[in-house]
């Protein structure tokens, strides 16, 4: 799995992670993979819902050390 772009949203509160994610996804091609790093607990429930709604695929969601959530999203 090759990551096309990494989006660092650490320290950001809602709605900035979601806004930055949506903007970044617009710049990607179908099949590209985005890695997002965030610390807002809200993203853990917001991003799966957003992926479901937009048809993008959440490939992975893992908890890293330091309270960082890593999400791997493939553009549809």
């Amino acid at each position: 799995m090759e990551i096309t772009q990494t989006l660092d949203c650490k320290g950001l509160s809602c709605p900035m992670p979601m806004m930055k994610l949506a903007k970044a996804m617009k710049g990607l091609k179908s099949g590209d993979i985005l890695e997002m790093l965030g610390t807002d607990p809200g993203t853990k429930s917001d991003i799966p819902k957003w992926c479901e709604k937009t048809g993008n695929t959440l490939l992975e969601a893992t908890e890293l050390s330091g309270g960082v959530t890593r999400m791997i999203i493939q553009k549809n």
Partner: protein
Amino acid sequence: MAEPTKESGVLVQLFRTFFGKHWPVWVGGIVLGTLNILLFAIKSPWGASGGINNWGENVFSSVGLINIESVAPVNENLYGMLCLLIVVGSFIGALFSKEFAFRIPPRGELIKGFIGGGIMAIGATVGIGCTIGAFFSGVPALSGGALVFTIGLFIGVIIALRYLLWEMDKFPKWSSGKSYNLLAAKPNKGGWQIVLGWIFLIGVIILAYSYVGSNLTMTWFIIIGGLMGMISQRSRFCIVKAFRDPFMSGESHGAVGVMAGLLVGLVGFTAIKLFGIGAEDASIRAREMTWVFPHFWAKAGIGGLIFGIGMTIAGGCAVGTLWRVGEGQVKLWMSAIGFLLISPISKIFIVPSVDNMLPHSMKYKNFLPDYIGYDGAVALVIAIIIIWYWFVKWNEKTGKFSAF
């Protein structure tokens, strides 16, 4: 092959039900709506900006900067304590779910938090209430001003959302840069957070009990405030999200959660007002006019608009700010500081000039049942909620009004 794991006890399973993952927002909305009825039955409905204003007045009077007469200390002010306990309750909820951390964002976000909080304070003092007092409680209280305040909120949110999109496009550095995340629990570790959560929970129980002999209402406000903070944190109940997300990502779950809370509140508030429950020595008329503020229509509209702008920039309304303070989001700490510092200043220097400009016909108490009866008022509020529900669901599917 994985090692067979020992099955958890029923109490551990129960604990995980509450703190293992986030609750649906509508569950939070229903429970918060119910607790709001309880507050009204005991004394008066939920509000947040008044409590934060009390914090600010205490700060100013303690340093002698502004002479504010008869400032109640926070520990004697029901709403000052309610707000404080929302922070503590959220802190406990975040600790129990091992979600607490000091999340320090880039500098630009901290500044936006402070400015957003200050704008919210102006909106709340001008409009007489915030998204809780003038909306989440005001609408079930059948206040005409609350409906106008809601319209103002919508417009404010749309304006500020456009600003945020513009800012992200033109000045992306404002929301990027060095950030810190301190004291976060490591994956599968962080038992200290749960222990600390229990210590604070016991502290809240002792605090509530300490008022039993002197002020039983305060005991209940402490318990309800703590529960409200915890429930808001677990369900991520957020009124900014309810107003903003349909125009941003198109998602509706935040809005539906708020609608659930409004409907529950509507049933309970109507019963309390109709039967004069808890009127005691006061007249039934005074009871039914509770949370119907003298802001119909312009004062409510202006306040709602300003508040909507502020809460969108801050990323949390008054209560959304409070529970995020509790889970360690430092941007919202700045928002709370901006709110509490600007609120007393706005009350003294801004509100009187707005009041002088507006004639009585633009700032009076409008109790909807006086014009269309209780049945008409309840039907009107339900109709508005149904239209709002239909709109957010239709928009979620079509994306017609969503920015992305």
